């Protein structure tokens, strides 16, 4: 910029303000730092997980084949009875998640459709606030609820049900993920433009046809996102399963048996005093890494699904 232009700009009051420019830059830097915290944290977690996991698999007592195929998981036992097969934990996690999804998906989506499309605004507001209360219940409370309230009832109905079982834990977990599914799904259905609904009504669609053929397909990306988020929460959920499903890694598909999940094993291993660097403590990281990979894969799959089936409206 020439001297002349500067003088002209100053004379016209259009010159750059030094303080404002510095202020803008500082704000930009502060916000950038805030944004980078999450990236740095993620990187640090991955780093810590993989370092310990690598040394776990580097130990001569462990092999990846055993980890993937053995049907027993007893890393905290003395060396002679020690097995490192993660499948009981993975199956335990999947069983509880399965029950939770069986309960949570239809109830969550059903309530979302009701709230978004059928309820009057007043009902919607009050039900949504109840859902928020449900979402705010600490999971440790839900765990006790499962153990002391749901399990006794279930034991009257289901013969041979253990005191600790994935059925009861999964059932209660289904209620835990319900608010996640319904609130995100409601938001995405409410975001479907009114013009699209009117177009369908104008063609002689009835209310349920509008919901099933226009609103839900158009909101599908949000609905799928809510499913995946709920599934990630179910897989990663710890207190309910620790309290209500048991802590005994068992290779079984029977929902009545006492089991352990990946998360409840981590709790168990972390509360005991495993010396740092021992194989037992490293096994905990290996389980954590497996858990992380599962939720990560889930997120990738969900993105694929959303891209493939989601209807985009402007």
């Amino acid at each position, binding site marked *: 910029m020439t001297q002349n232009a500067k003088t002209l700009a100053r004379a016209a009051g259009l010159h750059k303000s030094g303080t404002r420019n510095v202020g803008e830059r500082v704000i930009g830097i502060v916000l950038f730092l805030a944004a980078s915290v999450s990236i740095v944290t993620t990187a640090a977690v991955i780093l810590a997980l993989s370092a310990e996991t690598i040394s776990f698999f580097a130990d001569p007592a462990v092999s990846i084949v055993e980890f993937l195929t053995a049907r027993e998981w007893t890393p905290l036992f003395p060396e002679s009875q020690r097995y490192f097969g993660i499948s009981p934990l993975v199956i335990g996690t999947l069983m509880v998640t399965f029950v939770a999804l069986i309960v949570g998906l239809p109830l969550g989506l059903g309530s979302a459709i009701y709230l978004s499309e059928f309820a*009057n605004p007043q009902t919607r507001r009050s039900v949504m606030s109840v859902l928020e209360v449900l979402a705010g219940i600490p999971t440790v409370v839900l765990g006790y609820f499962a153990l002391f309230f749901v399990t006794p009832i279930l034991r009257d109905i289901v013969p041979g049900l253990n005191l600790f079982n994935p059925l009861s834990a999964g059932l209660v977990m289904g209620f835990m993920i319900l608010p996640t599914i319904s609130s995100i799904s409601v938001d995405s259905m409410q975001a479907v*433009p009114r*013009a*699209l609904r*009117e*177009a*369908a*009504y*104008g*063609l*002689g*669609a*009835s209310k349920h*046809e509008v919901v099933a*053929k*226009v609103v839900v*397909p*158009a909101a599908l990306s949000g609905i799928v996102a809510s499913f995946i988020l709920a599934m990630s929460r179910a897989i990663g959920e710890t207190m309910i399963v620790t309290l209500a499903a048991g802590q005994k890694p068992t290779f079984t598909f029977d929902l009545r048996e006492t089991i352990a999940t990946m998360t409840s094993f981590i709790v168990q291993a972390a509360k005991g005093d495993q010396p740092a660097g021992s194989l037992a403590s490293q096994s905990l990281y290996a389980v954590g890494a497996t858990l992380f990979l599962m939720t990560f894969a889930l997120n990738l799959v969900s993105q694929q699904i959303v891209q493939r089936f989601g*209807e*985009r*409206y*402007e």
Partner: protein
Amino acid sequence: MASQAVPKDHVTVRTDPIPAGEAVVTLENLSLWYGDFQALHDVSLTVPKNQVTALIGASGCGKSTLLRCVNRMNDLVPSVRVEGQLSYEGVNLYDGAVDPVEVRRRVGMVFQKPNPFPKSVYENVAFGPRLHGYAGDMDALVEKSLKGAALWDEVQDKLKQSGLGLSGGQQQRLCIARAMATDPDVILMDEPTSALDPIATDRIEELIHEIKKDYTVIIVTHNMQQAGRVSDRTAFMHLGVLIEEGPTEQIFTNPQHEMTERYISGRFG
């Protein structure tokens, strides 16, 4: 000058009234309230078969509300109350025995802003027929509807692509094809070209000319030139009251009521 009061006892000025035998839709003393607000005051209007009837008037005059009475679209607004009669082929559509869903199959609608579904061109057109369990040759019906809306030549290679990928004017013609596919008798158009450029508007207007041999069209428009170009009859509304109606040429060249004259000469509204 903009909002001039209408005398309470205004009697609609009518030129060349339509004989009852040629009517498809007949409104008799139709009044409508949104809650406490009365949006239509005792409107009586006869819509002749296979003609284009234009509803004109300033913003908020009730012309869109009136249009949306004909396919009972106003039912979707909570707190709406309707009095009077609206007959379609002799049946009062506001009778308790009438199913609005059935009404909308016979009375199609095209909206202000093109609103194709986020589905393929083909699925957009097939949407209505599929709803109603159309058992015939769907490909043929889609083709016929798209040809009817003068869109076939432009989209015959893009039937599988999203309807949202078309231009604004094409989208609106797709919406017209979609409305035609359910084989209605009446097509309502709510300012169908207000979101379109002049060339796209021109094509829609040509299309309206062509389709009136098969359909009865009621069109709401802000654009008086458009009313003059496309319609056979024009109804002028002001503050929920039907001021004057008659053959379009008459309304535009020799309006009988002073308010009509002022509106069409651009002095208010």
